[in-house]
């Protein structure tokens, strides 16, 4: 790479928002206050599946301090439509149904009614006085339960869509789709070795530290004002307006700082409810979720049931692959199985592929995006099978992957043909890393590898840049700042304008002040909003050239700009000098950039994990972990490394302990930080990172989004390491101590047996 080309890109300046974040001055969702503000509390269903016969709110309404009570009867009725909820669309009736349950509750934690009162405690107390008469129904909690004949029907109006067509069949399968490439059956007959395994993964939550929080004022002029923590103000505006049946002009959303989202703060849960409470009470209403609300009432990522079959020749070439992916959608259709199917074999060039995907409704919270949604489950399955084949063929697991790696021109079964990608480069970086060859000493230790892919998105972003008279600029964009995007966007503007990063003052606009911008998600912000900033900066340069031309009485086309200096006909003027003369040359300069790129380059990621397993307790300790990822171009390497480390840690959490532990009746029993068991810093080694740079061919700086692909490989890498440490392969996440111990016991009781929990044999 040519580091010297850039003055700002690739450096590590301090974050523009660092001081506010470390001093606690930054305003997150729950920090917002308005005069006269009330506090809302949402009453949630105690049952996983029940018909609502009657709701009596009279005692709550009469409770001292209560100013409003709402139920689904307060939601407007309007014709069905698909509403874009950020990275996808959902029928309005489902969005409304999830906001406040109508005739049925579909999961424990489903919102049923809400109270606004003078304090959160009064609201909670009053909510406990609401009488809901439930007719409890049997529930289905996994795809296997829900797909069984005679399973409880969760959505009576749901009809299965199959291969793109409506079948008219009722049931819990919302959709069955298939991708075909080549002839899989034939491909398996060409194979010398075929391995088929069955996998299951648990429902897991994004685990953002900040709970959802919103404050809404339904103003006397009919305008709804929202201040909330979310991944995208425009998406909140669109969904809130749709649920309330208002034009978007009547809803204004001001984004507050966000304390983590990982995809989980794209959809809305609270805003329309707070709006209705505000409308009824005439006062602003704030609602802050508890951690239990977050676990039980927001969207986790799907649990899954998968089968992967792969065949390879003795020479190491994969000849065919087949996937069965059935994902839990939760209460409404929309399991992230489609992206799972896009990613399941994406790392490999396989000529013959069949992929079947099932989107299955179950009595759990409606699932939502979570960092490379759908890909981590699929990669756990694929990368476990790939590991097993490599071992059976006597091949090094990285070399085997390299022999079959996807590259430019490789066609995926779901259609697209890869453009320039960095899969090979990531695998080579893994192979060449000292970690991969370091000796692993001591008993009960093992090393595992895995790779993963996320396709990334582009989508719409807007940015404006206003030039100040001292030659600094103010930058306004529409992207909620997750993990330093204010700075990574500003750096791209600074590089284009020949300024330093600290010469740019970035801010995140509200929906009244900046053009439409999609959510901060899909690894798109540094890529697309950064691109918009480059466009805005180029617009500034164009306008400034005109000013220079005016001063020099020449043609703007003859003015050149390079590294902060305008030149024409032997004369030159710096950006700063020219900025001081804007008043005399026509007034302010405001540049605008608006982009909607469609061809974002995907990112590949790899993980090397060393573990030690306590053979007496089954506890897995991660001793060393290296993450490798293609960033295209790392604008701010520290933030790229931070993303890689964060994704790795979340993936390790999936691998080892995180799960929704459900009772048979569908209650999540571990809905607290204590019992949900995300890894803490004491459970992790320092995560080593290697940034690979295979520039995206279209982006001005070659950026590839880096927010997501890093979570994809870790569960498989850890599982492969556990196998090498113990001789036992696990086919279910999480691999918690009980699961590992049970697998070890089973191995003891079956001499010679090593493969467990697998219904199919090689």
């Amino acid at each position, binding site marked *: 790479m040519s580091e010297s080309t850039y003055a700002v890109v690739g450096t590590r300046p301090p974050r523009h928002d660092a001081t506010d974040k470390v001093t606690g001055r930054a305003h997150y969702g729950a920090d917002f206050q308005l005069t006269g503000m009330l506090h809302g509390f949402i009453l949630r269903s105690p049952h996983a599946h029940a018909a609502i016969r009657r709701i009596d709110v009279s005692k709550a309404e009469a409770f001292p301090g209560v100013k409003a009570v709402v139920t689904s009867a307060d939601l407007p009725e309007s014709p069905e439509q698909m509403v874009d909820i950020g990275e996808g669309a959902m029928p309005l009736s489902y969005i409304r149904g999830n906001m406040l349950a109508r005739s049925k509750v579909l999961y424990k934690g489903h919102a049923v009614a809400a109270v606004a009162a003078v304090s959160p405690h009064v609201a909670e107390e009053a909510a406990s006085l609401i009488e809901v008469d439930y007719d409890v129904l049997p529930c289905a909690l996994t795809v296997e339960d829900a797909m069984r004949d005679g399973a409880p029907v969760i959505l009576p109006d749901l009809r299965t869509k199959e291969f793109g067509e409506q079948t008219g069949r009722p049931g819990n399968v919302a959709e069955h789709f298939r991708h075909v490439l080549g002839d899989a059956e034939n491909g398996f007959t060409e194979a010398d070795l075929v391995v088929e395994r069955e996998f299951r993964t648990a429902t897991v939550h994004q685990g953002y530290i900040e709970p959802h929080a919103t404050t809404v004022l339904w103003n006397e002029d009919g305008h709804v004002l929202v201040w909330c923590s979310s991944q995208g103000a425009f998406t909140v505006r669109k969904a809130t307006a749709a649920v309330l049946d208002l034009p978007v002009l009547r809803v204004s959303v001001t984004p507050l700082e966000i304390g983590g989202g990982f995809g989980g703060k794209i959809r809305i849960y609270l805003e329309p409810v707070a709006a209705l409470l505000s409308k009824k009470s005439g006062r602003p209403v704030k609602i802050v979720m508890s951690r239990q609300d977050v676990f039980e009432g927001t969207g986790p990522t799907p649990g899954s049931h998968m089968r992967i079959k792969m065949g390879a020749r003795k020479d190491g070439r994969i000849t065919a692959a087949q996937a069965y992916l059935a994902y839990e959608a939760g209460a409404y259709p929309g399991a992230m199985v489609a992206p799972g199917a896009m990613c399941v074999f994406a790392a490999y060039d396989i000529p013959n592929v069949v992929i079947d995907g099932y989107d299955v409704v179950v009595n759990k919270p409606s699932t939502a995006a979570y960092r490379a949604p759908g890909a981590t489950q699929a990669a756990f399955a694929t990368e476990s099978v790939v590991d097993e084949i490599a071992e059976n063929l006597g091949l090094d697991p990285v070399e085997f992957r390299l022999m079959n790696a996807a590259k430019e021109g490789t066609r995926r079964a779901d259609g697209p043909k890869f453009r320039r990608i960095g899969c090979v480069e990531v695998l080579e970086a893994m192979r060449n890393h000292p970690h991969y060859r370091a000796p692993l000493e001591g008993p009960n230790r093992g090393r595992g590898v895995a790779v993963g892919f996320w396709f990334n998105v582009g989508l719409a972003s807007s940015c404006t840049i206003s030039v100040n008279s001292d030659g600094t600029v103010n930058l306004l964009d529409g992207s909620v700042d997750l993990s330093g995007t204010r700075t990574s966007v500003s750096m791209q503007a600074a590089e284009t304008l020949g300024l330093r990063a600290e010469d740019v003052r970035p801010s995140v606009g509200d929906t009244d002040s900046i053009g439409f911008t999609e959510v901060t998600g899909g690894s798109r912000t540094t890529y697309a909003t950064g691109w918009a900033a480059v466009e805005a900066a180029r617009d500034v340069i164009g306008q400034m050239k005109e000013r220079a031309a005016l001063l020099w009485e020449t043609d703007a086309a003859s003015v050149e700009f390079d590294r902060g200096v305008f030149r024409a006909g032997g004369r030159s003027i710096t950006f700063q000098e020219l900025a001081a003369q804007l008043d005399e040359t026509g007034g302010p300069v405001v540049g605008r950039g608006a982009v909607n790129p469609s061809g974002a380059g995907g990112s590949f990621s790899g993980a090397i994990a060393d573990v030690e397993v306590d053979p007496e307790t089954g506890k897995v300790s991660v001793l060393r972990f290296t993450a490798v990822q293609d960033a295209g171009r790392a604008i701010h390497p520290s933030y790229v490394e931070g993303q890689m480390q964060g994704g790795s840690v979340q993936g390790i959490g999936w691998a080892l*302990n995180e799960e929704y532990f459900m009772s048979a009746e569908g209650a999540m*029993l571990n809905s607290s930080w204590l*019992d949900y068991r995300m890894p803490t810093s*004491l459970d992790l080694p320092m995560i080593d990172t290697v940034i690979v740079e295979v520039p995206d061919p279209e982006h001005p700086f070659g950026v590839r989004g880096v927010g997501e692909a890093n979570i994809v490989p870790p569960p498989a890498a850890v599982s492969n390491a556990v196998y090498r440490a113990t001789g036992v392969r696990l086919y279910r996440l999480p691999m918690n101590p009980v699961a590992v111990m049970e697998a070890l016991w089973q191995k003891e009781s079956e001499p010679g047996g090593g493969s467990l929990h697998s219904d199919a044999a090689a």
Partner: protein
Amino acid sequence: MKWFDYAAPRTVAEAAGILASHPGALPLAGGTDLLGQLRSRVRETDLVVDVKRIPELNEISWDAARGLTLGAAVPCYRISAHPVIRRAYPALADVAALIGGVQIQGRASIGGNLCNAAPSADAVPVLIALGAVCLVSGPGASREVRVENFCTAPRRHVLEPGEILVAFQLPPPGPGAGSYYLRFIPRNEMDIAVAGAGVAVTLDDGHIRSARIALASVAPTPLFVEEAGEWLAGKPVEPQSLAAAADLARKAARPITDMRGTAEYRRHLCAVLTRRALEAAIKRAKEERS
């Protein structure tokens, strides 16, 4: 959380009077369990009685003949930093440093850990192993209750309305003593014991003179496995002895299957943890003797 009234008595008699006249009142020491329970509505009360301001509940005193007197409301940070406790009752110092993080240790107390009466309470197996006795005051005469007899069921204990746990009395450890607490948690911090073992031993020239073993999280109350300790008395310090005692602990356990582990897994852990805790306590005892 519902509204509640708050009282902060300055004497044991005053506290006992308030608690006796308000049967639903709940005592608050560090509050690290109670406030969470009130917030999540696991418990409700109209009156919280803060016992932190009563001097007797905040004292640590040591007497070579009587042993240690530990006020029930003494916060963990004082216990883990106390030189006598660190030397003479190392498992107690360890467990005071194990419960919660630094902020929690600034508030949480051993008396509160016992009165919360959770089967998983980390300090309780240690208190049992060390032979601790509860000093209880109330409207009537004061009485003493051995810690192993204090809890009666999850969240239930022997205190009558108006009674208050004032302090623990721990006998002096004697020569060749070592104690250790080991819990199993899936993570390395911030977790509730899936199972735990607290042990105290005294050694006598290659033999175990006495041993007390207690378990956490494997029965409705913290479990004193008296037979395991008695079996060990007089046995040589050998792996077979420890394994046999560990097996007795496993057999004594009456665990349930829940989100933290299966009953079978917990029974298995009882043996593993008891053996490992005994090994560690014996190591300490040997260091004490040398």
